[in-house]
C-alpha cells in the first residue's frame, strides 16, 4: 500500500523529500496543536475530507468537527494527556465525516512531538481505509459465505498443512467426528481423528500426495475415529493446496460419510441374500408384465438363469390359459391390495410348472410394482389329483355299497319274518313290513316303543322270563333264541320263534339289538298234533303189546304145557321183540310228554346214591349179557337233594344202559357220584365205541344215532339221550360229554344241590 513514514523533529526544517511527501501523500498529514487546532495540513485533506486546506487551518473543525461525539471526546482527552506523559503512538480506526456529509473510515495515527521533553504538538496521519474496509468487509463476507458453504456442505471438508495440522474443518466434519464446531482447528489430524492402526499409512499417503508420488484424483476410503470412539467410514477426494508460488502448502480433502451407506449396502446385500435364498420363488414385475426382479429360487423353478428370466415378460412366462387372466388379476390386486391365485408357467424345457402365488401391490418411487411370492405346487397338484381320483373311487364304492345296502334293505324290509332293530335299551328304531302281519302293529306304530313290552306284543310270559332274557342279552351280551308266547294288537296270542342278537360297537358295548320274530303258532299246532298222535298211537299200542307179553309169559311159565327147547327158544325171541316194542312205545310216550310239556316234575328229598344203586342192580342182567365189568363209586357225603326220583332214575337208567350197550365185551363201565360246591355230579364212564366229534352236538336230538353205532348196535331207540337231556334241562341241571371215537365216553350230569323246581304236568315220564 502506501509508504508510511515517521516524521521526527527535523520537521521545522523540511527537506525536499519531506515536502514532496507532504504535498503528494495520499494520506492526510496534519500538525495538531494541543488545543486541537490544526496548525498545518497536507494538501490531501482536500480529496480525503473535501475541505480546502485554508478552510480547516487554525480551526478545530477538521478533527473535532468531523468526529462522532464520543470519538471527539476521546481525542480531546488524549490531547490533554499529551501535555503530560503521553509517549506511545496512537493508532485508531474511526469514522469521520467529510465536508459533503459522507462518512469515511479512517486509520488515524498520532504521535506526540516533544522538544526538550515538553509536548509541542501532535503529528497525525489519517489514512482513508473506507475502500479497504469495504474490501475487507467483502472479503469477510466472502469468507463467511465460503465458510457457510463449507459448513452447510454435506461433505466433510478438511484442510491440512504439511505437518498434518488441521487448518480448516467444516461443521460437518466436526459433526461426524463428534466435536463442537471449531474445536479441532489446529489439532493434528492423524493423531486425533484417525484410528491408531491406519495413522501411519494415511500420513504416508498424504506425504506421497504432496510429493506428487500418488495420483490426486483417486478416491479412497478410510475410517475416522469419532470423539466417542466410534468408527465411521469416509470416502475421500483429495486435492493439494498451493500458495501463490505454486508450492504445496497442504492438502484439501472432501469426504463423504458412507458408513451408513456401506451398512445399508451390506444390509441390502444381506436382504438380497435372503430373498435369493427364500424358500419361495419371488418375482417383481411392472403392471405391463416386465420383470424387474427374480430371486434364485424363481430362476431355478423356471430353469433359467436370473438374468435370462428377467428378460422374459410375465405374459410369455405363463401358459395361455393363465396369461389371459393377467389383466383381470392385476385389476383385482389393485382393488384389494393383494391376491392369492394359481397359475402355470412354462419351464425352459417346455414342461409346465403349476404355481401358487401371493401377489401384492407395491408403490415404489411413484411406480406401481407387483411383488409376488409363490411356490411350485406340482407336488400339491399331484396330491390333489390323487385325492380326486381316490375320491371318485370312494364315491364309486359308496355308490356300489349303497346299491348293496339297498339290496339288503329291500331284503330285510320285505322278509316274511318280522325283523326289527332296537337301540341298546330295546327301543325300536326300525321294524320291517312283516311287523304288521306277525304282530298286528304297523311299523310306524312300533318305532319308538320298547320291543316286547306289554304295550306291544309282550307280557304273556313270566316276569322272571323277561328279566332273565334282558340280562342274557344286555349284560352277558349273548344272543337269545327261544319260543315266546306273544299277543297281537287285536289280543290274539301266537307263539313266536324269537331271535335276539346284540350288535356290539368297537368297544364291545351293545350298540343295537337285532330282533327277529317268526310266527310258529301253526307249526306248533302241527307239532302238537303230531305229538298227540304219537301219544295216542303209543297209548293204543300199549294194550296189544301188554297182551302179547302176557301170553308169552304164560307160555314161558308152562301154563299151556311143558315147552320143548326149540319152542322155548322161539318164544324167547318173541319175548325179546315184544319187550323192545314196549321200550319203544314207552320212549315215544315219554318223548311226546316231554314235547307236549305235559310231564310232571314232583321233587322230593331223594338219596341219589340209592337210586343209582337201584338202577345198577336192575341192569345186572343186561351187563351179564354184554359181559360188561361194572364198578360203582360214591362219594362219602352225597347230600340228599330235592328232585323227582322217577326222573333221576330215568337219567341214570338211560345213560348206564347206553354205556353197557355201546361197549364191546369186557370193557369196563363205571358209575360214580361226586360232590361239588353247588352241585352233585353223576358220571357214567365207558370204554366203548365212543362218539365221533361231528355227532357229539347232535346226540341229544331225537332219533339221532351216530353212524359208528348204527352199524354195530341195532337196539336202541335213539330217544334215550333226548329224554335224558329234557329231564336234565327241566331239573336246572346240566349234562356234559367227553368222548373219543374208539376209546370211550363219559357222560356227566350235574344237578344243583338246591334242586328241581316243581313242575306241574298231567303225567309223569315212563321209566325205562
Amino acid at each position, binding site marked *: 500500500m502506501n509508504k508510511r513514514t515517521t516524521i521526527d523533529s527535523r520537521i521545522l526544517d523540511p527537506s525536499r523529500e519531506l515536502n514532496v511527501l507532504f504535498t503528494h501523500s495520499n494520506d492526510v498529514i496534519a500538525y495538531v496543536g494541543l488545543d486541537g487546532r490544526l496548525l498545518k495540513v497536507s494538501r490531501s485533506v482536500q480529496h480525503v475530507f473535501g475541505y480546502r486546506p485554508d478552510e480547516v487551518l487554525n480551526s478545530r473543525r477538521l478533527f473535532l468537527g468531523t468526529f462522532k461525539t464520543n470519538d471527539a471526546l476521546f481525542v480531546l482527552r488524549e490531547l490533554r494527556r499529551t501535555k503530560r506523559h503521553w509517549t506511545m503512538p496512537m493508532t485508531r480506526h474511526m469514522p469521520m465525516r467529510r465536508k459533503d456529509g459522507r462518512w469515511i473510515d479512517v486509520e488515524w495515527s498520532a504521535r506526540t512531538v516533544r522538544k526538550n521533553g515538553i509536548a509541542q504538538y501532535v503529528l497525525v496521519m489519517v489514512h482513508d481505509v473506507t475502500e479497504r474496509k469495504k474490501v475487507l468487509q467483502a472479503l469477510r463476507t466472502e469468507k463467511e459465505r465460503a465458510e457457510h458453504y463449507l459448513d452447510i456442505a454435506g461433505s466433510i471438508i478438511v484442510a491440512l498443512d504439511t505437518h498434518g495440522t488441521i487448518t480448516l474443518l467444516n461443521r460437518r466434519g466436526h459433526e461426524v467426528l463428534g466435536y463442537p464446531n471449531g474445536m479441532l482447528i489446529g489439532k493434528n489430524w492423524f493423531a486425533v481423528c484417525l484410528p491408531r492402526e491406519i495413522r501411519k499409512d494415511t500420513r504416508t499417503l498424504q506425504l506421497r500426495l504432496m510429493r506428487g508420488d500418488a495420483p490426486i484424483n483417486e478416491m479412497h476410503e478410510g475410517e475416522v475415529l469419532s470423539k466417542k470412539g466410534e468408527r465411521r467410514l469416509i470416502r475421500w477426494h483429495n486435492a493439494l493446496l498451493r500458495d501463490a508460488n505454486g508450492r504445496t502448502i497442504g492438502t484439501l480433502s472432501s469426504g463423504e460419510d458412507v458408513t451408513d451407506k456401506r451398512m445399508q449396502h451390506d444390509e441390502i446385500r444381506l436382504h438380497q441374500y435372503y430373498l435369493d435364498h427364500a424358500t419361495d420363488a419371488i418375482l417383481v414385475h411392472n403392471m405391463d408384465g416386465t420383470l424387474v426382479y427374480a430371486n434364485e429360487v424363481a430362476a431355478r423353478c423356471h430353469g433359467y438363469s436370473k438374468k435370462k428370466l428377467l428378460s422374459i415378460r410375465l405374459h410369455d412366462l405363463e401358459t395361455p390359459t393363465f396369461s389371459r387372466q393377467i389383466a383381470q388379476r392385476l385389476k383385482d390386486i389393485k382393488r384389494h391390495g393383494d391376491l392369492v391365485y394359481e397359475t402355470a408357467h412354462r419351464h425352459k424345457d417346455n414342461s409346465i410348472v403349476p404355481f401358487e402365488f401371493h401377489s401384492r401391490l407395491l408403490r415404489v418411487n411413484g411406480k406401481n410394482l407387483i411383488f409376488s411370492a409363490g411356490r411350485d405346487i406340482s407336488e400339491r397338484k399331484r396330491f390333489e389329483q390323487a385325492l380326486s381320483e381316490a375320491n371318485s373311487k370312494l364315491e364309486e364304492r359308496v355308490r356300489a355299497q349303497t346299491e348293496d345296502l339297498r339290496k339288503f334293505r329291500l331284503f330285510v324290509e320285505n322278509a316274511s319274518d318280522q325283523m326289527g332293530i332296537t337301540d341298546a335299551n330295546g327301543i325300536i328304531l326300525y321294524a320291517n313290513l312283516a311287523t304288521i302281519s306277525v304282530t298286528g302293529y304297523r311299523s310306524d306304530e312300533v318305532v319308538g316303543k320298547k320291543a316286547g313290552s306289554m304295550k306291544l306284543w309282550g307280557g304273556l310270559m313270566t316276569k322272571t322270563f323277561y328279566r332273565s332274557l334282558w340280562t342274557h342279552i344286555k349284560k352277558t351280551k349273548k344272543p337269545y333264541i327261544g319260543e315266546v308266547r306273544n299277543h297281537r294288537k287285536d289280543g290274539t296270542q301266537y307263539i313266536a320263534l324269537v331271535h335276539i342278537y346284540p350288535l356290539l360297537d368297537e368297544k364291545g358295548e351293545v350298540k343295537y339289538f337285532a330282533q327277529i320274530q317268526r310266527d310258529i303258532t301253526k307249526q306248533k299246532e302241527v307239532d302238537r298234533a303230531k305229538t298227540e298222535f304219537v301219544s295216542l298211537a303209543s297209548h293204543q299200542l300199549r294194550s296189544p303189546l301188554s*297182551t302179547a*307179553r302176557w301170553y308169552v309169559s*304164560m307160555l314161558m311159565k308152562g301154563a299151556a304145557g311143558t315147552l320143548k327147547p326149540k319152542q322155548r327158544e322161539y318164544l324167547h325171541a318173541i319175548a325179546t321183540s315184544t319187550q323192545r316194542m314196549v321200550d319203544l312205545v314207552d320212549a315215544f310216550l315219554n318223548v311226546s310228554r316231554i314235547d307236549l310239556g305235559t310231564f310232571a316234575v314232583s321233587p322230593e328229598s331223594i338219596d341219589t346214591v340209592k337210586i343209582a344203586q337201584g338202577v345198577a342192580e336192575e341192569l345186572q342182567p343186561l351187563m351179564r349179557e354184554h359181559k360188561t365189568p361194572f364198578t360203582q363209586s360214591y362219594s362219602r357225603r352225597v347230600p340228599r337233594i330235592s328232585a323227582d326220583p322217577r326222573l333221576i332214575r330215568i337219567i341214570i337208567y338211560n345213560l348206564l344202559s347206553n354205556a353197557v350197550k355201546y361197549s364191546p365185551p369186557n370193557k369196563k363201565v363205571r358209575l360214580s357220584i361226586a360232590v361239588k360246591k353247588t352241585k352233585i355230579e353223576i358220571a357214567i364212564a365207558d370204554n366203548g365205541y365212543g362218539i365221533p366229534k361231528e355227532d357229539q352236538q347232535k346226540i341229544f336230538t331225537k332219533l339221532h344215532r351216530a353212524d359208528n353205532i348204527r352199524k354195530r348196535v341195532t337196539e336202541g331207540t335213539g330217544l334215550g339221550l333226548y329224554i335224558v337231556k329234557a329231564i336234565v334241562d327241566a331239573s336246572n341241571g346240566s349234562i356234559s360229554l367227553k368222548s373219543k371215537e374208539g376209546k370211550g365216553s363219559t357222560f356227566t350230569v350235574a344237578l344243583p344241590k338246591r334242586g328241581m323246581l316243581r313242575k306241574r304236568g298231567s303225567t*309223569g315220564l315212563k321209566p325205562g
Partner: protein
Amino acid sequence: MSKTILIAEDELLMRQALADTLTASGYKVVLAENGRQALDKTTSEKPDLILLDVMMPLIDGFGVLKSLKAKKETASIPVIVLTNLGQQSDVATATQLGAVSYLVKSETDPTMVAKEVARVLKSS
C-alpha cells in the same frame, strides 16, 4: 272152598289170560266186560276180590270203585286196580277211592297178578 275173583276188563284177550291164570291157580272166576256188568255181577256173585281195570266203557274203573265203596255190602270187598298207564294221578285216585293195590299192566304179567291176588286175600 275156593275164592271167587271178579275180573272186570274190557279187552277180551287180557280178560281171557287173567281168567286162565287165575283158574289154573284154583280160583273161581267171574267175568265182566264193562263197569255196569262189574257192578251187577258184584251184587249177584258176591266175589271175594275184584280185579278192576280203569279203562272201561259205560262206567270206568273209578266210577265202579266209588259205587262199590258207597254200598255197605260191597265196600269191604278188596279191589286191585289194573291200569295201562303209570300216571301218578291214577295211583293217587285209586288209593284215595279205597283200592287196596294197584298194578300196571305193561309192567306186570298174569303170574304176578295171581301172586298179588293171593297176597291180598291172605292179608284181608
